[in-house]
């Protein structure tokens, strides 16, 4: 039980970081497609859609990398929390307007994720961000007193299909 308490924050942090790195990388590879996804929300005009499509994936990538690596975790988590709030607002507005669109959150390989489902997913990410923010960047203390990183953090995949 104490093991869960010790390692859960690390697992949550690494998983959240991986999800955002993955989300960023897939969108960096296809900015035009992502601009289309943003345009589908019918919130931003033409050029701002492209501007957001150009910048947002990099914000996701860098903040994801920070919390994944354990460096400047709080700052990275603040950015990710703010992003999640924006995503949730956009998805809620799409759901309220009954827009039949794909959320555009990840490159889902043809599978469509409805705004409502994506909203629920973002609420989970928001809760994970809260865990990361409250536990901070310190690794949990080892029973023996070592301050070493308790996880080699390799294969925690954030792939969402």
């Amino acid at each position, binding site marked *: 039980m104490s093991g869960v308490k010790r390692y859960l924050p690390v697992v949550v942090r690494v998983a959240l970081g991986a999800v955002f790195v993955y989300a960023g990388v897939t969108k*960096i590879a296809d*900015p*035009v*497609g992502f*601009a*289309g*996804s943003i*345009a*589908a929300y*019918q919130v931003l*005009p*033409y*050029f701002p*859609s*492209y*501007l957001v*499509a*150009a*910048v*947002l*994936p*990099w*914000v996701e*990538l*860098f*903040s994801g990398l*920070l919390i994944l690596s354990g460096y*400047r975790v*709080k*700052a*990275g988590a*603040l*950015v990710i929390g*703010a992003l999640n709030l924006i995503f949730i607002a956009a998805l809620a507005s799409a759901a309220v307007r*009954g*827009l*039949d*669109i*794909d959320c*555009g959150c990840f490159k889902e390989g*043809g*599978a*469509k994720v409805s705004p409502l489902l994506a909203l629920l997913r973002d609420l989970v990410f928001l809760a994970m961000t809260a865990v990361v923010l409250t536990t901070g960047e310190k690794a949990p203390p080892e029973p023996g007193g070592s301050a070493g990183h308790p996880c080699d953090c390799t294969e925690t995949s954030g792939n969402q299909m």
Partner: protein
Amino acid sequence: MKATENTFKGSTKAAGEALIILLFSALVGISWNHTLLLKAWKGEATGPAAGTTPAVATAAAEDPMPLGLEQAKELFNAGDTLFIDARDRGAFASGHLKGAVSLPLADAKQRGKIALPPRVTPKTTVITYCNGFSCHDSMELGKILLKAGYTTVYVYEGGFPEWRDAGYPVEKGGA
């Protein structure tokens, strides 16, 4: 007391660092995509005010440029644009953008020949669409049209569902 002060200091520091992350990402993102942004910017400048085609789709483009709902509607209103429905004929018959012609992707692939009305020349602005963002047939068809020599090809990615939901003109029947 001191602990509260430290927490406050820590939060301010993290907020400052968060701002740096945002600025740095913006710098990298804009530099990385500067060509695309420049194209999009030009498209905006020649868009609604001039009543002309956004300059983002060029003959040299490998992929057709996507259009949002409003841009598609502007070109629809301008009237000299042909909307091409990439869905199958059944879907087309049950509802399509007003004035659109049907050219199912499967047909365009099979025949290897683009069967479009005679008034359509390679210079005509054409916009392909299908069933929204979950559907990639319009992008595929757009690529085929570009290869076939059509110079101004856009993909309206919101497709029929978004157009219909926006209350814009649709019609049934025909093919």
